[in-house]
């Protein structure tokens, strides 16, 4: 892999630069070349943008969500979604509104049936005061991005069995679901890099031992292993401890693939001329490792990390869905989906399935982004 070195081939600059690229493509740094190449993958750029939005939402969910996480509208259990409208019988309105809903118990089944009251329009206002919450646990405030006047309800995605607003819970859940992948990936990254580097750098019996160990871990079917480890987390742990326990469980398997990649790269890079030059120049082993070898395969590592995040998000969702992962009151998309386990419940309240779409969108976005990054990681190839 000689193209790792920072010497762009002057013969094929066109394949690297985007059409509007300036002529300084010959002198551009490797990261700049990568960015140009990445930009050409439109889908990946959009996916990256979407992910930024999702993480922004996760960061500011307290403010963006119309209700706090555990706020219960007792009179509105299993209320259907109230769509935002601009058109009523009176014509078009400039300000978006929702119709108020009224619940009535069915005389026989005792189930609550909700109907829209088309006479009562609730205007959706921005920057309103609502239920109070602690922003990032720092200070108390009651400002929300949007809401309706007092006494009205705005459940854009409906409510769950306890009358909690599903949209708000999905937004809060994104904080857990989206970060658990990142934390898990960071852990596998540290483990994989360290162990892979040791294995590749020292070689010999250490290498042999580590490789056999990795083979054994990889020969375990991952889902049963995850389930067994998750079931082993003690019930007495606090939600935060469980959260970290789950990320450790998820990353325990992820690092093996990474360690193998790192080892392979180091084995091949060790033979390169620039390494020999560094050795001859009297550079220390650690400096060669961190200053010369690591940067040469960093881009590849980043790609495999991006592609590992969705796997972890899915695994967390699956474990929580089965009741082995996170437990309420911690709220993740998987925990929200436990309400959708029962067919009857889903058939009567199909909006309980909406967290599914958030999971799919996040996973798709990470896959597309990883795809684009993979192409960009090697900016000198065609």
């Amino acid at each position: 892999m000689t193209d790792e070195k920072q010497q762009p081939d002057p013969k094929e600059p066109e394949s690297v630069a985007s059409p509007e690229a300036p002529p300084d493509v010959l002198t551009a740094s490797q990261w700049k070349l990568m960015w140009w190449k990445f930009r050409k993958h439109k889908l990946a750029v959009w996916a990256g943008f979407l992910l930024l939005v999702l993480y922004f939402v996760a960061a500011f969910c307290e403010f963006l969500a119309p209700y706090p996480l555990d706020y219960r509208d007792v009179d509105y259990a299993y209320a259907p979604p109230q769509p935002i409208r601009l058109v009523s019988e009176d014509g078009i309105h400039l300000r978006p509104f929702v119709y108020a809903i009224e619940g009535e118990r069915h005389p026989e089944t005792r189930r609550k049936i909700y109907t829209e009251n088309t006479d009562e329009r609730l205007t959706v206002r921005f920057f309103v005061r609502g239920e109070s919450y602690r922003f990032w646990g720092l200070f108390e405030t009651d400002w929300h991005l949007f809401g309706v006047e007092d006494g009205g309800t705005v459940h854009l995605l409906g409510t769950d069995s306890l009358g909690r607003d599903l949209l708000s819970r999905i937004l809060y859940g994104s904080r857990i679901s989206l970060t658990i992948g990142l934390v898990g990936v960071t852990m596998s990254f540290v483990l994989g890099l360290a162990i892979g580097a040791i294995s590749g750098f020292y070689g010999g019996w250490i290498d042999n031992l580590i490789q056999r160990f990795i083979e054994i871990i990889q020969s375990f079917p991952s889902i049963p292993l995850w389930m067994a480890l998750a079931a082993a987390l003690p019930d007495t742990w606090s939600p935060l401890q469980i959260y970290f326990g789950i990320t450790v469980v998820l990353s325990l398997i992820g690092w093996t693939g990474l360690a193998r990649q790192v080892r392979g790269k180091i084995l091949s890079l060790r033979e390169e001329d620039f390494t020999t030059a560094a050795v001859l120049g009297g550079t220390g082993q650690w400096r060669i490792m961190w200053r010369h070898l690591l940067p040469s395969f960093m881009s590849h590592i980043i790609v495999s990390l991006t592609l590992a995040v969705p796997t972890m998000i899915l695994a967390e969702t699956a474990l929580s869905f089965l009741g082995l992962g996170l437990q309420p009151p911690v709220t993740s998309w998987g925990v929200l989906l436990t309400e959708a386990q029962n067919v009857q419940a889903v058939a009567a309240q199909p909006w309980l399935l909406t967290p599914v779409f958030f999971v799919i969108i996040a996973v798709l976005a990470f896959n597309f982004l990883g795809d684009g990054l993979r192409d960009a990681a090697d900016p000198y190839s065609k």
Partner: protein
Amino acid sequence: MFALIVHRVFWLVPTLLVISIISFVIIQLPPGDYLTSYIAALEETGQTVDYERVEALRQRYHLDRPMSLQYLYWMGGIVQGDLGMSFEWNRPVRDLIGERLMLTMVISISTLLFTWALAIPIGIYSAVRQYSWGDYTFTFVGFIGLATPNFLLALIFMYVGFTFFDVSPGGLFSEQYEDAPWSIGKFADLMRHIWIPVIVIGTAGTAGLIRVMRGNLLDELQKQYVITARAKGLPYWKLLFKYPVRVALNPLISTIGWLLPTIIGGEIIVSVVLGLPTTGPLLLNALMNQDMFLAGSMVMVLALLTVIGTLLSDILLLWLDPRIRYEKK
């Protein structure tokens, strides 16, 4: 090649030994054992606990011994083909797994056939007509299929089936055939139900295989020998199926060995969601109830099958594709 197989089989023994230790440790990780949680459950509901019986059970299954001895007892049983007893079911683990194995195998093999029947033709089409309208459609659908986790797909299927077709897609049989002996009617009933789990489990695999098939075939189609064969006048379709497709099929063979563990493991989560009478839900239950011999033996068997499966695939590949060399340095 023979030396390689011997070498790999030799490595199998220590690998399996380590696997068995890890399996046992994992199963022992939760505090307490089945009996303590059994007592706790009884006390919670206010029933009297027969401590003598519990003590007898504890001694019978050596739960009072240190962990290393327990492991040796367990291992000794496994070597003799005895997978231990399930506390919860009060039956030998081997019978429990055996009972559910048949249906698990039926589902796994049907899924495999479904995946291949769909993925191979679509993959070939996508590669031959690259960037065509059909290729884009399949790519897009494939990506969504890959991104949707199986159990969420199962949820959506159940919802659609229940609301629009008025069928409850859970389980593999209608009620009247649940415990009935095998008959043509029961078989027909199975066929009516099996397509939902097959589609649900097979989607992700199909999508992945289409991508692999397409990528491999595209690589092959650009090679010199294809041009040479065309220049010699070999008809396109004949050429396609005689050479590039055969080479592109390699990944199918390299994954065929992984079929073994899925035969037992099934798609655990999908089986739980759809309520399938397969081995998956059995394992989940055993893990949650600390039914240690059942859970441990199942994890052990799964790992064993994965190792053997991988070995089989490697040997198959070596045999079918003479270009592959496993050289020892």
